[in-house]
C-alpha cells in the first residue's frame, strides 16, 4: 500500500516536471519565433535603407551628368520615390530615441527638392538650370556620407551578426550598454558628420510665408496677473466672480501663459485659456465636458458659434467646414476681407450639441497670420474660371479666396467647391494666371462604432 502511493507520487512529480519543462520550452520557442520575425523586419528595413540611399546618391549624380529634360524628369521621379521608401525604412527601425534629425533632414530636403524640380521640369519645357544643379550637388555630397557609412555599417551587421532586436531591447529600452555598440555608434557618427554640413540654402522658391514676427517675438510682455484678467474677460465677458490660476508657461512657437478657471457649471472640469505673453491675445481655449444626447441641430450650432465669435470681435466670418462626431461638433470659420476668404487665418470652434455651449476655440493661425492685406483684384473673372473646371466636378460654389499654396506662399485664388461621386473637393485656381494652385480633398473619413472604457 505504502509502496504504491510512493510510486504514484513519484510518477506525478515526474509528470509535473515534464509538463512544466514542456510548457517552458514551448513558451521559449514562441518567444524565439516572435523575436526572429521582429529581427527579420529590422534587417530588411536596414538593408533596404542602405540600398535606397545608394540609389539616391547614384541618381543625383546622374542628374548632374545628363542634360536632357526627359532624363531629368525620370531621374527626379526616381529620387522622389526612393526618398519616400528610405523614409519608410528609417521610420520602421527602432531608432526613435536616437537623435538623427540631420540625417532625416537630408532625406526630407532631397524629397522636397526633387519634387519641386520635378514640377518645374515636367510642367515647363526647361531642363535643370545651373542654380538647381548647385543644390543637387550639395545634396550629392551629403548622400556620399550617408551611403558610405550605411553600407559600411551594413557590412558590419552582416559580418559580426549584430542583432537589431538586441539594440532595441538592451540599449534603447533598457538604457544599458551593449557588448557591441556598433549599430548605435554608427548612426550617431553618421549624424555627427551630417551636422558638419551647413544647412542647404534652397533659395526663394522654398522659403515659406512666416508668421508675423511682432506677434511671435513681440514688443511688450505681460505678466501672469494681466493674462488672468484678459482670459477672464474674454471667456466670461462679465465679472462672475471667477478667479483663474496660472497652470503652466509655454516657450514654444508662441510664448504663452496657460490660465485655468474652474467652470461655473461643472466644477470638476476646468476651462483652460492660453494667453500670448507678448500682446495678451487669447490663442486658444478648451474644456473637457461630458456631453449628453445631442439636442441641437448643426445649423443652430453654427448660430451659437457665430454669437460666440461676434461677442469676441470676429464680425465677418464664413463657415467652411463642419465635422460632427457624436454629441459635439467642430466648426471651421475663415475671416473675410471684402468678399475674399482668408484661409491662412482660420478659426475653429468646438461646440457641445447637447446644450450649445462652446467648449473650445482654436485661433493660433488667426493669431500668427492675421493682418490687413493688400489684396490684388482677380485678373480672371468668375465665369472664366468656371469654364476651366473639369466636367467631372459637380460645382457647388465659386468664390475668391486667399490660400497658402504647396510652397508656403500666400496666393489669391478662385475657390471652386464641388463633388465627384462620393468625393468632395475644393480646387483653387490662381486668380491671375488660372494655374491650379491646390486641390484639397474634403471628403470626411469613414466613421465606425468603437467601445470606450469609461
Amino acid at each position, binding site marked *: 500500500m505504502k509502496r504504491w502511493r510512493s510510486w504514484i507520487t513519484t510518477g506525478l512529480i515526474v509528470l509535473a516536471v515534464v509538463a512544466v519543462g514542456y510548457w517552458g520550452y514551448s513558451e521559449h520557442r514562441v518567444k524565439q519565433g516572435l523575436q526572429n520575425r521582429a529581427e527579420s523586419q529590422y534587417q530588411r528595413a536596414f538593408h533596404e535603407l542602405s540600398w535606397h540611399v545608394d540609389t539616391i546618391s547614384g541618381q543625383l549624380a546622374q542628374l548632374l551628368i545628363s542634360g536632357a529634360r526627359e532624363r531629368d524628369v525620370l531621374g527626379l521621379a526616381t529620387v522622389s520615390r526612393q526618398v519616400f521608401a528610405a523614409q519608410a525604412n528609417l521610420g520602421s527601425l527602432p531608432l526613435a530615441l536616437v537623435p538623427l534629425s540631420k540625417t532625416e*533632414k537630408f532625406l526630407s530636403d532631397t524629397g522636397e527638392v526633387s519634387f519641386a524640380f520635378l514640377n518645374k521640369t515636367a510642367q515647363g519645357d526647361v531642363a535643370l538650370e545651373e542654380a538647381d544643379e548647385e543644390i543637387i550637388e550639395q545634396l550629392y555630397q551629403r548622400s556620399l556620407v550617408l551611403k558610405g557609412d550605411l553600407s559600411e555599417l551594413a557590412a558590419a551587421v552582416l559580418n559580426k551578426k549584430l542583432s537589431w532586436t538586441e539594440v532595441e531591447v538592451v540599449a534603447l529600452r533598457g538604457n544599458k550598454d551593449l557588448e557591441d555598440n556598433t549599430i548605435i555608434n554608427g548612426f550617431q557618427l553618421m549624424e555627427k558628420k551630417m551636422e558638419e554640413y551647413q544647412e542647404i540654402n534652397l533659395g526663394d522658391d522654398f522659403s515659406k510665408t512666416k508668421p508675423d514676427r511682432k506677434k511671435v517675438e513681440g514688443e511688450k510682455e505681460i505678466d501672469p496677473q494681466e493674462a488672468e484678467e484678459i482670459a477672464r474677460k474674454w471667456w466670461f465677458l462679465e465679472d462672475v466672480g471667477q478667479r483663474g490660476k496660472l497652470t503652466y508657461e509655454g*516657450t*514654444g512657437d508662441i510664448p504663452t501663459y496657460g490660465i485655468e478657471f474652474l467652470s461655473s457649471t461643472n466644477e470638476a472640469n476646468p476651462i483652460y485659456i492660453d494667453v500670448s505673453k507678448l500682446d495678451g491675445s487669447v490663442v486658444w481655449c478648451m474644456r*473637457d465636458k461630458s456631453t449628453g444626447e445631442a439636442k441641437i441641430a448643426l445649423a443652430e450650432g453654427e448660430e451659437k458659434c457665430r454669437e460666440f465669435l461676434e461677442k469676441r470681435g470676429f464680425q465677418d466670418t464664413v463657415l467652411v467646414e463642419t465635422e460632427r462626431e457624436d454629441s459635439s461638433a*467642430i466648426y471651421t470659420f475663415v475671416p473675410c476681407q471684402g468678399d475674399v476668404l482668408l484661409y491662412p487665418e482660420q478659426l475653429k470652434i468646438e461646440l457641445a450639441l447637447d446644450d450649445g455651449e462652446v467648449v*473650445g476655440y*482654436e485661433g493660433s493661425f488667426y493669431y500668427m497670420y492675421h493682418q490687413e492685406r493688400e489684396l490684388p483684384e482677380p485678373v480672371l473673372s468668375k465665369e472664366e474660371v468656371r469654364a476651366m473646371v473639369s466636367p467631372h466636378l459637380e460645382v457647388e460654389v465659386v468664390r475668391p479666396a486667399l490660400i497658402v499654396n504647396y510652397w508656403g506662399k500666400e496666393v489669391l485664388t478662385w475657390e471652386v467647391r464641388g463633388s465627384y461621386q462620393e468625393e468632395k473637393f475644393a480646387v483653387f485656381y490662381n486668380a491671375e494666371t488660372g494655374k491650379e494652385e491646390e486641390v484639397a480633398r474634403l471628403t470626411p473619413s469613414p466613421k465606425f462604432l468603437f467601445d470606450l472604457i469609461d
Partner: protein
Amino acid sequence: MKRKYIARILVVMVAFLLVGAFLSEGLNPYKTVANGKNGGTVSSNDVYVLAKIISAEARGESYLGQVAVGAVVVNRVKNANFPNTVYGVVFEPGAFEAVSDGQYYSNASSTALKAARVAINGWDPTGGALFYWNPSKPVSRWIWSRQIITQIGRHVFAL
C-alpha cells in the same frame, strides 16, 4: 508526514502551472478587447488610434495633459523628420512605451477620445513639441538633450 509535504508541493506546482497558463493567455494584449462596455462612440480610425495612444500614455493626466500628448503625435505627423501618418508615428518602433509594453491595445477612455478629436484639429497646448517624457521615471539618456519648452502635469515637453 513526508508524503503530505510532497503532495503539497505537487498541488502548488499544478497551481503554478495553471496560473502560468492562465496568465500567458490573459496577458496577451491582443485578447483584452472585451473591456469596453459603458457606451461606444462613432469615430474615424485615425482619431481612435490617437485616442488609444493618449489613453495608454497619459492615464491619470488632466484633459490638458491628454490633449498635449495627442498634440505631440500630430506635430510629428506634420514634421518632415517623422512618418507622415498617425499610424506611422504611433507604431514607429520604440517611439511610445505604451505600444512596446502592449498597454496601447486596450480600448480608449472617453476623455482621451475627446482629447484626440481636438488635438487632430490643431489644438496644441505644447506650442509645437515633438517629444515628451516623465522626468521622475528612468528615460533614455538621449532624450535629455532636447530643448524643453513646457511642463504640463507629470510630463515635460520638448522640441
